[in-house]
């Protein structure tokens, strides 16, 4: 085999490898996936059981073939940001093998170590380190083997691109490849580490300056098959004898099943079964179009709920502000906010509202479950395949060794999506029927019933002294985040709720702003409020791309802008003043890096320093600029944007975006830039368009017409990403790689509101800033 550059399908390389060597079957007692293609072509489900790959064995992480190519086994999932390519970069660097001679297999529970799948934008921040360490250990072991081979000390050897050569002594000039040393054989090296994240060998990591592939931008290895039609996704998975299922949801939220008239679907060809359990109802048919028809046609009688499940989304914020909180967090305080506000020269107060927003995944939730051979294989795009394995085993009360989840590519998944619910439903139905079942949600189901990022109602108060300096800052948030749904929980997944399981609700949280401003008197307080219906509701809270950051930062960073305007100070200068006023820093130097990002963004954007608003109008179009800033974990983001507001139609166009981004060491600058561009626009979409709307009985947002999103018509003229390394010692050999992705979503809502204010003098305090809402504000 020559270069593996174009080998993209995860399982392919594994299968080819198996064909070539045959040894791997022994190294993984339960080796099973031999490539998704192999399944589709020749087998339904290899015999289990499926014990966990042993994280303390080097062979679980890295395989080297006789042709001097390597495959890395990573227990993460790549949702289209290029993390798989990035893992190949850092691991090929530590291993000293050519990048083009590597592939990466990700996220299938029986062949990759449980690194949790994806979440928290921490693939490189957390999991990058064990992956580097195991690759470094493989290099160390191979050098020892080379030393033995040549009969020289390791210090006499050099290695480059998987070729070990002797640089001194009698054997000088001789060389051997990794593949010749180990290819087709096992390392049989035991690692150490108290848990998977701590996995390590004996080898030290390289200084980042010695990493050749890091900082370069090899193209993402998943892209070609996504444009040539060869990619096989979880939606494409088929096995012989597979059935098609559709759910039938209660038409009114909180309704309970009264009766099902199965004679209503008697004439549907291919109907296999109508399944109902509690309030969970599904139809299963031989063919997909039959299942669609059966689900539409099935006559189900529902008993409406005794009381409204929630207030209408129009009345949500009034409800949230009046409600008695179900819980409150301990406020974080410094100084005396109330006393300081009482003596301030100027006091500003404002309220900010962010509605529920859905994932609204582009591809409705789906999964295929295959119960062949007395085992259960689930093909899913869920980013937490390991969690699904454990959760489904619990839910169905079967040993987890009998369950495996094969992770495959899927549509947009930035958090706890309904892919999890579909996985459990497919598993349940497959077990009920004893045949493979493919579950596919409808668009209406996805938009209505996926999990939602919690709504926030925030009250801010601030005090300025007679010099316009900020002396008091008070943040008080209410989050509608009672019964926050976790990941792949057997007792909170939607099907479990509909079947009547009642887990003690997990109180979500009202998060606090993330900034490095120094304000002498500051208080941050938060409460959680509950909607009337906590279970079996489509307004169920789950993590959505920085779970609370956009909501919190909308309030905090809009308010900083309001304070700057009240002080008649340039909003950038106002923020820099608050950052530079402080002394000292945290371990990640976030204050210094925040200042560096603000300055880098201002330079690229060519920020015009002046107080807002500008109210620059040309015909119908008012133009303005705005900024906002936040960090998440260790990653710092500053966003500056230019907007055009059409004063006649209310339409807001984000014309230009500059983003300064510091996530420490950047592995693949181009892939990062592209991932950030998408994240920025997703946040613009949330600012301008997105809201899960409902009346007092049902969801009103159920498709792309009722639930609009940013489109190609709204694409900015220009996006500039400035990758900042604001570390005080930017050349240090252990420069950390932090997470990238979610942080980008935090500042945008405020940046857009601030830019609209600059353009028009009108302050938008309720998300989203739809044309109608902007127009109403302009006319108020």
């Amino acid at each position, binding site marked *: 085999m020559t270069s593996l550059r174009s080998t993209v399908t995860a399982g392919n390389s594994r299968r080819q490898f198996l064909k070539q060597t045959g040894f791997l079957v022994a190294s993984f007692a339960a080796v099973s996936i031999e490539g998704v293609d192999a399944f589709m072509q020749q087998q339904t489900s290899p015999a289990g059981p499926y014990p966990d790959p042993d994280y303390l064995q080097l062979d679980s992480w890295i395989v080297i073939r006789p042709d001097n190519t390597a495959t890395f086994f990573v227990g993460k999932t790549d*949702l*289209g*940001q290029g993390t798989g390519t990035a893992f190949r970069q850092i691991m090929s660097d530590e291993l000293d093998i050519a990048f083009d001679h590597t592939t990466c297999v990700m996220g299938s529970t029986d062949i990759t170590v449980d690194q949790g799948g994806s979440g928290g934008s921490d693939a490189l921040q957390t999991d990058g380190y064990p992956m580097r360490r195991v690759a470094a250990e493989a290099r160390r072991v191979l050098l020892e083997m080379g030393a033995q081979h040549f009969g020289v000390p390791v210090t006499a050897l050099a290695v480059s691109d998987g070729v070990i050569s002797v640089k001194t002594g009698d054997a000088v000039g001789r060389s051997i490849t990794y593949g010749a040393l180990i290819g087709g054989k096992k390392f049989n090296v035991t690692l150490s580490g108290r848990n998977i994240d701590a996995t390590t060998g004996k080898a030290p990591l390289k200084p980042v300056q010695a990493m050749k592939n890091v900082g370069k931008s090899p*193209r*993402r290895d*998943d*892209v*070609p098959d*996504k*444009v*040539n*039609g*060869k*990619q*096989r*996704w979880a*939606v*494409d998975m*088929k096995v012989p004898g597979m059935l098609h299922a559709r759910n039938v949801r209660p038409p009114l939220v909180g309704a309970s099943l009264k009766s099902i008239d199965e004679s209503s679907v008697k004439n549907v*060809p291919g109907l296999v079964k109508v399944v109902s359990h509690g309030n969970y109802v599904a139809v299963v048919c031989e*063919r*997909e*179009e039959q299942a*669609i028809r059966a689900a539409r046609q099935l006559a189900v009688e529902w008993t409406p709920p005794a009381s409204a499940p929630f207030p209408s989304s129009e009345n949500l914020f009034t409800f949230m502000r009046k409600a008695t909180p179900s819980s409150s967090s301990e406020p974080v305080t410094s100084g005396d906010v109330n006393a300081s506000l009482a003596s301030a020269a100027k006091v500003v107060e404002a309220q900010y509202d962010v509605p529920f927003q859905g994932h*609204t*995944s*582009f*591809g*409705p939730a789906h999964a295929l479950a295959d119960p062949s051979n007395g085992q259960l294989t689930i093909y899913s795009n869920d980013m937490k395949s390991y969690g699904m394995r454990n959760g489904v085993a619990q839910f169905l009360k079967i040993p987890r060794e009998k369950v495996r989840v094969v992770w495959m*590519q*899927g*549509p*947009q*998944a930035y958090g706890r999506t309904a892919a999890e619910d579909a996985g459990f439903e497919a598993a349940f139905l497959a077990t009920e029927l004893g045949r493979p079942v493919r579950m*596919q949600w*409808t*668009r209406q189901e996805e938009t209505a019933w996926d999990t939602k990022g919690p709504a926030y109602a925030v009250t801010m108060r601030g005090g300025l002294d007679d010099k316009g300096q900020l002396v008091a800052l008070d943040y008080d948030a209410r989050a509608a985040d009672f019964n926050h749904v976790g990941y792949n929980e057997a007792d909170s997944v939607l099907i479990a709720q509909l079947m009547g399981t009642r887990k003690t609700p997990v109180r979500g949280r009202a998060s606090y702003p993330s900034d490095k401003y120094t304000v002498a008197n500051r208080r941050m307080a938060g409460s959680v409020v509950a909607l009337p219906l906590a279970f079996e509701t489509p307004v169920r809270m789950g993590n959505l791309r920085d779970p609370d950051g956009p909501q919190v930062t909308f309030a905090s960073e809009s308010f900083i802008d309001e304070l700057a305007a009240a002080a008649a100070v340039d909003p950038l200068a106002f923020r820099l003043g608050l950052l530079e006023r402080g002394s000292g820093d945290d371990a990640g130097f976030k204050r210094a890096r925040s200042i560096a990002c603000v300055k880098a963004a201002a330079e690229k954007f060519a920020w015009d320093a002046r107080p807002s608003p500008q109210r620059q109008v040309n015909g119908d179009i008012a133009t303005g600029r705005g900024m906002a800033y936040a960090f998440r974990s260790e990653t710092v983001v500053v966003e500056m944007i230019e907007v055009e507001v059409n004063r006649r139609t209310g339409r807001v166009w984000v014309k230009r975006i500059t983003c300064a981004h510091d996530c420490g060491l950047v592995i693949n600058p*181009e*892939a990062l830039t*592209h*991932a950030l*561009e*998408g*994240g*920025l*626009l*997703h946040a*613009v*979409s949330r600012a301008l368009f997105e809201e899960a709307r409902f009346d007092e009985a049902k969801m009103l947002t159920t*498709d*792309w*017409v009722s639930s609009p*999103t*940013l*489109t*190609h*018509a*709204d*694409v*900015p003229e220009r996006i500039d990403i400035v990758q900042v390394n604001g570390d005080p010692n930017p050349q240090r050999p252990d420069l950390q790689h932090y997470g990238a992705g979610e942080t980008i979503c935090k500042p945008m809502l405020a940046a857009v509101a601030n830019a609209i204010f600059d353009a028009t003098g009108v302050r938008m305090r309720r998300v989203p800033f739809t044309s109608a809402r902007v127009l109403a504000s302009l006319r108020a």
Partner: protein
Amino acid sequence: MAAITLLVNGSRHTVDVEPSTPLLYILRNDLDLAGPRFGCGLGQCGACTVLIKGEAVRSCVRPVSQAANVEITTLEGLAKGGQLHPIQQAWIDEQVPACGFCQNGQILTAKALLDKNPHPTDADIRDGMKNTLCRCMTYYRLNAAVKLAARRMA
């Protein structure tokens, strides 16, 4: 049920199915094509796009009976003689996809657009592409890739 003949990517297939079945399910489930994908079933998002006589058509709302005996091209049929179509190459060169689920619709919509209008203005591209959604919001890359493809195809 009825026997229906489909001409897809240069091959002839006869299927015996309910004539009102949307073309999408036949392409995916009977012809085993993975390019067109289910996104909404309502003709709103574009994930299911195929080309029928050069027009970008939403196969999720087109009954299979209305697609009989006409040339249908799916994403799989765009490359010729092992060479990617210039639009596909532009998508790779601009590294457009994130999750990639919508890109079938983006590429085929761009194909229909550029076939009709080889020198589109920015406004033409925005207008021509605006009904094909992307929730990873790759629009900025998409815009650049359409322009790159137009330049190369000119």
